[in-house]
């Protein structure tokens, strides 16, 4: 897939994302400044992590109003793929492209550590190179990753199979300790209906090379390379 990475002021994970995408696809992704409005020719748009607009007002609130967001909506309407990571997840919920919101971590602390994610389904382009229910390690670094949605929305997400990843123990069990930010139903990532839009809080792009300490995140990017 031809990929582009959206860059807002205050975003700082775009280069990690570029390395991960290029590592799997062999193609350099295009960097898209937030004022650009031509996204033609791209199959996949990635909204990376960081602190867009200094997290002012709410994480992702300002970026969700930027000019490029209208183009991202059009890209999604055309059937294009879209992925958000960390601040990207916050931005996509603020923009209404995914339901729910990311609240302050339940323990109030910024969490910078590894977590383990369970692949809830593997029949999507994002998770197709993982096994179903596979557990993989991913670094996380966020202060507002506590996924929240009302019960009706959570029931709909589960009923339609839109939960992408959950926080689990290395053995794959859902426990309070494994779900450190307090996310509703242990949700770490979700899909939009159609499975072409996905976002998650942890950073699979930061574990794609033995030099980084592991390659647990690489299957996700291998899936997107096809």
């Amino acid at each position, binding site marked *: 897939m031809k990929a582009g990475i959206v860059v807002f002021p205050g975003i700082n994970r775009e280069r990690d994302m570029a390395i991960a995408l290029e590592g799997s696809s062999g193609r350099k992704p295009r960097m898209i400044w937030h004022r650009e409005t031509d996204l033609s020719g791209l199959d996949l748009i990635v909204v990376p992590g960081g602190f867009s607009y200094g997290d002012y007002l709410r994480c992702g609130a300002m970026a969700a109003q930027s000019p490029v967001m209208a183009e991202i909506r059009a890209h999604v309407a055309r059937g294009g793929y879209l992925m958000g990571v960390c601040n990207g997840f916050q931005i996509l919920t*603020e923009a209404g492209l995914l339901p729910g*919101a990311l*609240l*302050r*971590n339940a323990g*109030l602390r910024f969490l910078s550590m590894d977590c383990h994610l369970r692949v809830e389904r593997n029949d999507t382009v994002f998770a197709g190179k993982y096994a179903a229910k596979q557990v993989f390690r991913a670094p996380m670094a966020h202060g507002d990753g506590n996924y929240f*949605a*009302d019960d009706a929305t959570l029931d709909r997400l589960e009923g339609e199979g839109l939960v992408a990843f959950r926080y689990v123990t290395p053995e794959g069990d859902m426990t309070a300790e494994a779900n450190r930010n*307090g996310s509703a139903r242990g949700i770490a990532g979700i899909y939009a209906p159609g499975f072409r839009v996905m976002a998650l809080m942890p950073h699979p792009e930061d574990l794609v090379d033995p030099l980084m300490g592991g390659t647990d995140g690489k299957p996700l990017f291998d899936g997107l390379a096809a």
Partner: protein
Amino acid sequence: MKAIVTVMLKSGVLDPQGKAIGQALHGLGFPEVGEVRAGKVIELELNETDPARAKARAEEMARKLLANMVIESFRVEVA
């Protein structure tokens, strides 16, 4: 005129910041403190003289940007 927008987390949405403030107040010798909720206040200077219109516009701003209606509610006062 000025519009004051108060944004609070909806009841039922966990407010860990309010909880931490409550615990700190207990530690400082204020045992009478029950539940604490923390929110934010946004003051807007508006180039507008009609209070009803000012309130309606500020409410629109709150719905579009200042509050996230998934998790927050808001109140607008015009002065």
